């Protein structure tokens, strides 16, 4: 199988039963993606994976076979920051608003938030809570995560307004 992960192509022979999360962690060394449960509830393993509509969508990589990712592009938490190391707006907001403690849910939570904000760039608090309800956190009580996503939404919109040419908004 061949999969693009965080901008690099990996070609491997993979057992059909291998879960994507284990392929990422154990074969490709992408250990930022972690495992928190065995029943697809916790979302710790969330990555963005190419889908039929050509967009990368959040998936729980514990519930995808690696071979199902053949020919797709996957973004893990390790590929989210810019090439210069600058943090994505969601990563930055998580830091500034203390939206993480042990850090174990954080990679999945951030990628879910990135997916949420692409679909809904200005979500309400209720929409954020709904949008992140597939990601469990044991440390934060969610409040600062919600606030971080709100803050990231504002930052992303502000930056979008700057980069968009004027004609595009008319």
């Amino acid at each position, binding site marked *: 199988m061949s999969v693009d992960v965080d901008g690099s192509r990996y070609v491997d022979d993979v*057992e059909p*039963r*291998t879960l994507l999360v*284990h392929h990422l*962690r154990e074969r490709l060394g*992408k*250990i*930022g*993606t*972690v*495992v*928190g*449960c*065995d*029943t697809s*509830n*916790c979302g*710790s393993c969330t990555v963005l994976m190419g889908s039929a509509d050509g967009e990368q969508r959040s998936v729980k990589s514990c519930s995808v076979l690696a071979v199902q990712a053949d020919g797709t592009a996957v973004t*893990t*938490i*390790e590929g*989210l*920051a810019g090439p210069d190391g600058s*943090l994505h707006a969601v*990563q930055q907001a*998580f*830091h*500034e*608003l*203390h939206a*993480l*403690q*042990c*850090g*174990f*849910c*954080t*990679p999945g939570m*951030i990628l879910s938030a990135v997916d949420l904000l692409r679909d809904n760039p200005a979500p309400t*608090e209720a929409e*954020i*809570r*709904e949008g*992140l*309800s*597939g*990601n*469990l*956190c*044991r*440390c*934060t*009580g*969610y*409040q*600062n*995560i*919600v606030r971080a996503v709100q803050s990231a939404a504002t930052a992303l919109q502000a930056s979008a307004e700057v980069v968009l040419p004027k004609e595009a908004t008319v």
Partner: protein
Amino acid sequence: MTVTETPMGFGRMHRKEDARFVRGQGNYVDDVNLPGMLHGSFLRSPYAHAKIVSIDTSAAEALPGVKAVITGAVLETLKLAWMPTLSYDTQAVLATDKVRFQNQEVAFVVAESHYIARDALELIEVEYEPLPVVADAKQALAPGAPVIRDDKEGKTDNHIFDWSAGDKEKTDRIFAESEVVVAEDILYPRVHPSPLETCGAVADFDKVSGKLTIYSTTQAPHAHRTVYALVAGLPEHKIRVISPDIGGGFGGKVGIYPGYVLAIVGSIVTGKPVKWMEDRNEHLTATAFARDYHMRGEIAATKDGRIRALRVDVLADHGAFNGTAQPTKFPAGFFHIFTGSYDLEAASCNVTGVYTNKAPGGVAYACSFRITEASYLVERMIDVLAFELKMDPAELRLKNLLKPEQFPYTTPTGWEYDSGDYPKALRLAMDMVGYEKLRVEQAEKLQRGEYMGIGISFFTEGVGAGPRKHMDILGLGMADGAELRVHPTGKAVLRLSVQTQGQGHETTFAQIVAEELGISPDDIDVVHGDTDNTPFGLGTYGSRSTPVSGAATAIVARKVRDRARIVASAMLEVSPDDLEWEKGKFFVKGDPDQAKTIQEIAMAAHSSLELPEGVEGHLDATTVYNPPNLTYPFGAYICVVDVDPATGQVKVRRFIAVDDCGVRINPMIVEGQVHGGLADGIGMALMQLMAFDEDGNHLGASLMDYLLPTSLECPSWELGETVTPSPHHPIGAKGVGESATVGSPAAVVNAVLDALKPLGVRHADMPLTPSNVWRAAQGRPIRTDLAIS
């Protein structure tokens, strides 16, 4: 919330830890990969209680890629089939004679991959002979109950211990003469801390050097090293325990589990590093549970609501092996702090521990050694009394709370509370929620047939175990070391015995040093979790890091400052007594221009500068802190819920939490700790339960049924604070991490029952799931038999 970037000491500071975690660059146990590493996995028991007739491992051993299959019989030859627990009991590492709880460890396969290891488990044949099961703690002491621990010589029943505290005679006397006496059976059900990262280890035994390195999910790496040394017979200098980044602990990672032992044995047997990483089902069913206290509370009072005494009987379900983690002299932890925040004449309790066919545990999930149970008991009993007296629960509390002038206050069961201003905290919470208006709203809603409830919980915590004279774990006194080294250029490294699992130690402990020495926290590296490189101490649980190691850190920094004063006096050619300290520098009294910064002093301390006789130079120090007492943070919590009695649905509308943990090192981090604990409270009060059927089958053994709150069940928390410093603590700080988990369940339950009060419901047990609330609203008991005889 404004964050001051890098304050020179206490204050809101962004976390140093975040940089790696938001990039996926943390280093958790399962991220550890060593050359040649193998993978281990357990075969577990399908029965709760059964004799093992035979185990056939031949097919598993023949599977390509399998390197070893270890059974109890193999461990017996190594004298490792049983291990000591933190309660001086024993626990089976691998079952030999029989299994005593469902999912108990029976065999361990070591293979080239965890996929192959799991395949091999399917090939092991075990013949069991099922035995009668004790699933209900109330049946454990019944005549004829099957004896679970027949491995213990002469053991003919399931009794573990009886333990009591307080003045029983005086308490009984007051109960006999009191105007009002109310009793209630209150269950604190079995739950599980369930950190998002399960338990795991990578053991690497180097046959040449004889050195064992074990990476593991441990909250107490030094204590683990000592236990391994005692059990395995290896000297401590040949054991290195490394606790890397931990994905949450919540008390579930204090003790030693069979998996750690088998990773070690597997490494010794195969000569390769061995990783063991359990899955969620294994974690929920076989690692430390929390609570499971069946309590009968009795409260004595006057007709006008003056509380006089409390009496409690507890039946404690400890599972098949007594593995509770608490100081040796306290088999029921600190449960006898159950008089809470109130001024009572007397109190007494008795706790009876029993074996059942369940996993071991008991002390976990931010319980501060059973204070969750104690606090829940008293806060429920206060509401039960208010129900009977038809009094407002806030008024009843205000009438009985300890007053600020009574501190330090010795409770009827012997605790000496350090400081507190309780009425102030409760009034602040009531103001924040708008208590009077809410009661009006509640009455109006009831007219319309809508049920809303307001629940109050006022708690006093006891954290920071503890004074070495009274508190030890397996004989290890609960004092903690700290070591501080300031480098020539004025940057520093602080080494600690405590072990963060997300609580932000790398940030806050640097802030303590910054506060004391005026070195930027960004220039201070906090090292923890590696027993080769940190001073001895007992680790992080019981919210003890700030009370014990926080104190040690302040003191070690002050020792360094004392040395710096001498160096500065040599530099400035004045007497040390002529120098004055201002954060970051010493200056000559009356001449502030004559000054040396801590950075200049650090360089001079390493230079050829001539120092007074007996002063060694360099700028470092070590200390061991033996706390004189616990710290006693407190808080006033108010929860507002809407309840639909027709469906049993509970919606938490608001949650106000006023916490007082004395001086706040980093308020941002304190607030995050409180948020997390409040979510625990919602989870325990409304969702979580580890249930068993009569055959001992563990129900709800996965996240499909063992429900953890998501962002949807949690409201936006509303926090308040008061500051009552601990007088005995070097920086006036108290612990706080577990406060919200201790205090919040009672607030939620009291709120739900407040809503159901018009229906005549006085008490219902957690979890208040829709079906349980519906039953309670129908006047049906949730549990039919809670009487403790």
